[in-house]
């Protein structure tokens, strides 16, 4: 009985500490909660929504120049409403697996290239007709923007990858400033003239061999 009491006290204490850790970690944005375990103790249910809506389209191309929709022919799973599951993958991690799974379980000619495309439109166009007529005086002419996210091989492995449209748009808004662009360019030397204190100690630290990913050696920026 005494053991049970102690065990329960220990459980209560640990449980409260863990949940408190989640609150503090989340409030202070500590990386300790940025993992699977953290997902269970962080309550970020409303962490922001985009002003634009988006959908992912995956298109396959065969050697004859024919195009195919890389979408489950048996019917896509829609977890919450009428939006396909692949769209809930905001980070695009699922795309490769999704492509492999659809191609593995469908009949099609040899696919050479697969294009992952993001379709974007303003969320105001999601308003139902009655609301549009009441709140927006303009004609409802929804036009989507398409952004090529990635080009993949037939096995889903990426050959070319572009930033997400939202990120690209944000970066473009900053790069739009010529003064900032100029300052950023001027701040990076054409040749790497950095002194490497670790290399100066002697030994074989990076220096003798050219390593493109290394910070030492020729940097062509």
């Amino acid at each position: 009985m005494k053991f049970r009491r102690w065990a329960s006290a220990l459980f209560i204490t640990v449980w409260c500490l863990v949940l408190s850790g989640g609150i503090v970690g989340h409030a202070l944005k500590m990386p300790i909660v940025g993992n699977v375990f953290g997902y269970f103790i962080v309550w970020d249910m409303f962490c922001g929504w985009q002003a634009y809506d988006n959908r992912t389209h995956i298109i396959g191309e065969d050697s004859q120049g024919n195009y195919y929709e890389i979408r489950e022919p048996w019917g896509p799973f829609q977890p919450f409403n009428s939006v396909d599951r692949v769209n809930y993958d905001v980070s695009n991690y699922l795309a490769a697996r999704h492509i492999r799974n659809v191609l593995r379980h469908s009949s099609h000619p040899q696919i050479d290239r697969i294009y992952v495309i993001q379709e974007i439109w303003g969320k105001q166009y999601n308003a139902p007709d009655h609301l549009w007529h009441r709140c927006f005086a303009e004609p409802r002419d929804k036009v989507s923007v398409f952004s090529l996210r990635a080009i993949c091989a037939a096995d889903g492995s990426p050959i070319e990858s572009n930033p997400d449209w939202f990120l690209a748009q944000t970066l473009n808004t900053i790069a739009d400033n010529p003064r900032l662009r100029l300052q950023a360019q001027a701040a990076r030397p054409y040749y790497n003239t950095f002194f490497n204190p670790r290399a100066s100690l002697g030994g074989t630290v990076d220096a003798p061999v050219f390593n493109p990913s290394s910070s030492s050696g020729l940097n062509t920026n």
Partner: protein
Amino acid sequence: MSGNQKRTSVFQQLHEFFYAEQSPYGLALVRMLLPAVALIPMFRRFPRVRELFSSDGAPQQLAELFGHGAALPELPPALASGLYGLMLFALVSAIFGFRTRIALLTGTPLYIYFNLLDAVGTMTKYTVIASHVLLILSIPPCGAVWSVDALLRRWKEGRAAAIPPTFPVWPARLIQMLFAFVYFGAAITKVQTTAFFSGEQMRYWMFSDWNYPNPLGELVAMSPAILLTSGYLTVVWEVSFPFLVWRPIGRFYALGFGVVFHLLTIFLLGLYIFPFICIPCYLTFLMEADIVTVRNWFRRIRFPSGWIAAPRVSLARLIAARPASVPLPLLWAGCAMLATVMGAEADYRFDVYGTRAAGKPLPLKTLDPVVARTMINSQRPLREKDKFFSFNIGTRMMAGQLANSGDTFRIGDTIIAQCNLNTPHEDLWVECVVEDEQRRVVDVAGQFVTRDLLFSNFPWKTCDRFVPGRYFFVLKSSGQEIARRAFTLTGDACPVPSGGVGILTN
């Protein structure tokens, strides 16, 4: 001396809070309701186990999203489906309270496992809350009352078992505290979220189709006053919840507001499962005395409560009629095994990829080459007008947002023209032009709208130069007309100040 007494008193209070002995009626209610709701999305996914949770499909583990690789094993489809069937059986068994502890200890890890396997389409914060609660329910004897187990024991032991057993109340307290943590954490998230308190974030959510339909939400999305008020009310309630919910009167506010809040999320945000995970958990706040009160009230109004217990009693009778040589654990294990086999069989019969029915894999749908090439090679930039969400005119402001809108004003009013912008957008030069009925420009105002701004206001004093009549506000960006709003000015023109008609210098 008094310090010592105080310390003892605090310790005693804490002891009383966690270890008071009560019959676990609240936990029993949660045990019956929570798995029932948590199972709704899981039953929906049953025909898709092969696709979502097995090595023959496309699972996306939560660990992979965090960059930790596939931390969990992805099982062959037959085994995954079998275990899925076992999970469904175990949680249904927990609802009825048949071998409650073992049912929850079996069902909960499987529930968490399958959720972790599909981070894209199954794992959500409501499954996290459900996982916490199921885990806590696995510890105490929440099957001690209102369960098949309790009925069988009563029938076996007679009157001695009629008195409900009591247990320390701490498991119920942990569920209560979980919600205090959830709401407090959610408030911190909202405080950290840009544009939550100006209503834009709520509006964007309400105009999304990522959750279930929310027609009322779409309507409310165009009312900044409601969005702002509800946003502030929610955060105040979330922060105050832990401080009020254990107070005698405060709990009615904290829980009452909570029920209303969660019910509104159904209609406003299209969350259909989340509220029904949370609201049943509030029942852990019901203590023994509350249950007695509710029971007496049910008796007074002659509420026919017998039918609620009917399924449980019928199942208990069925189980009691088993051959005496079959012990209960063996019966449960047999049923669990049957559910596992049926799960595997169901996967075969569901034939999710359609290959068995068609005799071959289904063909991919071809796409019109023009459409495909347009999508692949499209270089079309965003239209200027799509950088703007809306353009409205009104007279009243609330937290920087236009609180009303109209098209008829009186001379003397200050009219505010407001444009709401979609982010991300670059730094913009936005103009608001006033035109009269003959499209002659009456006035122009321009502003820099920097990339961090979500709205911009153009106030106009109608006394300055307007006379009664019909006018237009025209919103322009990059020299292009974005939107046009007509309005009418009524009343008498303001008198021209003396000396105002001097030499024109422009």
